[in-house]
């Protein structure tokens, strides 16, 4: 049974649906990457999983449990975590406080998890007393991912983690994502740097106009001439 199973999901923000039947499955060991043109419903798919927009048809199940239209404060304790694309840190709060907020739903001792996050992103340990708003773009992205990892998720949803980062940082963030995945966290991310992201994806999904167009392993999608021509810029 897949960790996350999305079947024929239709949904939107109240007007015409943006998602018109999305199908997607992720296993615990997977790094899933959603690519596609602008307005294809990539970010919307992540938001639909996280209960931030209304799913009118289809089903979303996590660990076999139906979770469509559940709110984040129910989903986080179940093992889902989401890093939005923009405004994904609490700028006025210190790095450590940002991480604490990620552990809000936990009632047990989260100090070991914090150490684990600091070990993964050592630069955050150095800057833990600094307001997150003073950090560079790449470091903020680490704070955002660290915050999301503090709830010890089974599945981490990332909305364009490389957006707005310089090429050097893009590579670094991708390396961090692989590291997080190796630590046992499934990843589902939306990416603009499609070719680069599919290169390390175990599952790739090409979305267009709110529907799946192609599904396969990352390598298969890169190798598919039609995908390459239409969606990866030749």
């Amino acid at each position, binding site marked *: 049974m897949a960790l996350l199973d999305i079947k024929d999901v239709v949904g939107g923000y109240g007007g015409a649906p943006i998602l018109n039947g999305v199908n997607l499955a992720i296993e615990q060991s997977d790094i899933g990457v959603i690519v596609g043109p602008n307005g294809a419903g990539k970010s919307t798919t992540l938001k639909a999983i*996280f209960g*931030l927009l209304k799913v009118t048809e289809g089903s979303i199940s996590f660990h076999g449990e139906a979770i469509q239209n559940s*709110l*984040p*404060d129910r*989903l*986080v*304790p179940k093992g889902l975590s*989401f890093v*939005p694309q923009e*405004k*994904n*840190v*609490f*700028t*006025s*709060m210190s790095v450590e*406080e940002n991480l*604490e*907020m*990620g552990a*809000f*739903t936990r009632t047990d001792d989260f100090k070991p998890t914090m150490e684990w996050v600091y070990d993964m992103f050592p630069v955050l340990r150095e800057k833990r007393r600094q307001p997150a708003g003073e950090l560079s773009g790449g470091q903020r992205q680490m704070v955002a991912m660290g*915050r*999301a990892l503090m*709830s010890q998720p089974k599945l981490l949803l990332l909305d364009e983690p490389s957006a707005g980062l310089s090429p050097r940082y893009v590579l670094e963030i991708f390396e961090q994502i692989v590291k997080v995945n190796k630590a046992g966290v499934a990843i589902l991310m939306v990416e603009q740097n499609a070719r680069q992201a599919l290169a390390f994806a175990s599952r790739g999904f090409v979305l267009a106009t709110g529907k799946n167009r192609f599904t396969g392993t990352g390598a298969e999608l890169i190798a598919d001439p039609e995908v390459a021509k239409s969606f990866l810029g030749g």
Partner: protein
Amino acid sequence: MNELIFFFNNVVVAGVVLGSIYAVGAIGVTLIFGILRFAHFAHGDMMTMGAFIAFLLAMAATALGITTPVVPTGFLVLPLAMILAAIIALGLDKGFYAPLRKRGARPVTMLIASIGVTLIIQGMIRLFFGSGTYSFFETEQKQLVRIPVPLEGVTRTINFTQPQLLMVLCTAVAVLALHFFLTRSRLGKAMRAMADNADLAQVSGINTKLVVRVTWIIAGSLAAMAGTMLALDVNLKPDLAFNIVLPIFAAAIVGGLGQSYGAIAGGFLIGFAETLAIFNWSVLLRPVAGSLPFELPATLAIVPTEYKLTVAFVILVVVLLWRPTGIFKGAST
């Protein structure tokens, strides 16, 4: 020297007292703005309501013989009045603001709703208490503290009332408690997180409804405290705090909306500015009257007492020109 003591009594003492009341009121305004993103116009009337609750409790306590010679009964019942006011604040939110929020009402709608709540509270108070003036000190004395200054030729004493002293102490305790709550506790940090970025707070799994409830509890209880302090310093009447809701908003805006420490700073800034503006400078200048190029008038104040309210607006305009988001860089919308 006598003149300096007069200055101390009329500006420093009065400024600290007025500043405390403004600060405690403004904290509530700024917290509600930070979390719920609207200007809670009914805050002044929540203060008045809190004061009337404290007044009723004080009367009940006096009737039951629960009084001490040390502390005025108004202060004795303050904790209970704060709890009751917090419960009413939660009820007001549930009855008026929460249904609007649920339908995604814009801040302007919320503001208009809060004006409605203002009218409701004022109407209720007038219904039960009429439009008369009441005093906490009908059955007990307002004790005056006189501290003589051990200097030669000094005849004036430093004067303040015992309630004024207690007020400043209560404010200090409330501010410290709020500080520790916001910086040390899980819920306090969640409140700051939600004021910083409400969407991300929700995504992090923070129970935003709980944060909203806590906000109303703090704002409601602090409003009761500020209102009772004001009523203990002057008199109790149905439009007690409605008249000072504008300087309180000015204090919150000057400090930076959403910034608790800014609201405290703004409260004291405006409190001091008002007392300085209505101070009779003639008294200070009298010893040097002979060397002045003009004749000293009997009263020389920057503004007459009845125009005290304008001071808050002058400061508001000046601060916003110099720093559009307030001293502590608050929200601009």
